[in-house]
């Protein structure tokens, strides 16, 4: 019984540590990709404001109509 409790305690500790690492890695990932210029997350905030049917999409989806335009 003591053994399984000890095992549970270790599992609990390392699992928590693992989750904390995941959480912080995601934050680092968000900031790093902005810094490197791969993605500007904050520009997506404009999606709620500039939302007319004929507004220019921030990142246009590849559709038949815009392929033809190219």
């Amino acid at each position: 019984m003591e053994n399984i409790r000890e095992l549970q305690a270790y599992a609990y500790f390392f699992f928590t540590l693992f989750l904390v690492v995941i959480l912080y890695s995601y934050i680092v990932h968000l900031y790093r990709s902005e810094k490197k210029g791969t993605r500007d997350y904050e520009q997506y905030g404009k999606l709620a404001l500039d939302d007319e049917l004929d507004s220019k999409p921030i990142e246009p989806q590849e559709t038949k109509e815009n392929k033809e335009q190219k």
Partner: protein
Amino acid sequence: MVNAAMEYDYTVSKWFAYLSIIFGIIGMVVGVLIAFQMAYPELNNLFGQYGTFSRLRPIHTNVVAFGFTLSGIWAAFYYISQRVLKVSIRENSVVHGIAKLHFFLYVILAAGLVVSLLLGITTSKEYAEMEWPLDILTVVVWILFGLALFGLIGMRREKTLYISMWYFIAFFLGVAMLYLFNNMEVPTYFVTGMGKWYHSVSMYAGTNDALVQWWYGHNAVAFVFTVPIVAMIYYFLPKESGQPVYSYKLSLLSFWGLMFVYLWAGGHHLIYSTVPDWMQTMGSIFSVILILPSWGSAINMLLTMKGEWNQLKESPLIKFMVLASTFYMLSTLEGPIQAIKSVNALAHFTDWIIGHVHDGTLGWVAFMIIAATLHMAPRYYKREIYSKKLMEMQFWLQTTGIVLYFSSMWIAGITQGMMWRAVDQYGNLAYSFIDTVTVLHPYYTIRAIGGLLFVIGLFMWAYNYVKTMQSGKILEKEPAFASPMGA
């Protein structure tokens, strides 16, 4: 790029908005009646068996949660999704047809639910009272909603899904999973020949049933009262105020945090019950951690107003939304406090829990739905909102109602909990149950009056909405940000 004649089509969105107003009034009028019944029990005898608290209470909860709230969410969904995906639902007749079918089957389902509950037909599982035939119809309605959701996403011009769309997707997937697992039931007649054809029993028994039930029950709060309402505020507050969301990165982080944490918190409904102790502890801990992603979204909303706080004074719509996110913060702090084991020992089964539920649902959910419909109305009808003054009055009346509601329930709940636990020097209980009932009477009356104020506000909302449709000043073009309002 887009056909010049093409514009957003709000037909289905409007239908859901009408339903939301109707269900809001029905559900909350019943709520006020049963609140008065708690204070004045003779009101139970008004309509024979159909007017008793036990018959009406599930009608109140179901009509408000799955009538008013879901309709409000879908009204917003069919509006927001077209706009942030930059696609009109009219561009694809199949998706548009599915959306309409979604609406009509939902109306049939809602009618079936109300009638069956009035007749006393129920599975007796809280918030999952529908019997199996209606459960099957629910699944069909949900699949249609999913087809419309992913249909619109498939048609989109904007590649990136705005944060609201992530929340709508989570709403669809979360409810689908929860609903299916909690409503696994055995139709008694077809399996054993016993009972009526529509009766069923849960596939799970005893503690397992309780665990699945509260995993579902609490996550119904997560995926109906939280996730889609967050989707709505992430669109409507920035749009109405003209300010982009304060931090898009924070919105993403909060999204994944909420998704991961919420599903584990349901165990807090079963603290000090027969479920394993570690599950109770887990439910408790995850509830406390839940403060972080919840406050992440709420603070993000308040910071969106940075430098623009004058709008709070000027616009009743901004008032509704800012107070909604403030109530969201309040109830997501209150819930975790109640989930701490030692606090739960006092709070469980008391009116404090009912107070908690209502500051969340009235302050956060209902305020967001009211704000959403009034933001959409000028865009639906190309008319100004009929009366700003009426909206201001509604806001203050309802806010007073909510404060009366939760403060009376806090006092009632803590009094109740303390009296149940009180013992004399020999360890005998100091009070009998009826002693608590006598003491709580004034608080029950205050609660019912609070509810009544809120319902009067709902009638003002409905009146303002209908007048906007009929006689609001006609707008030349669609407003970009702040919704225009008549005096």
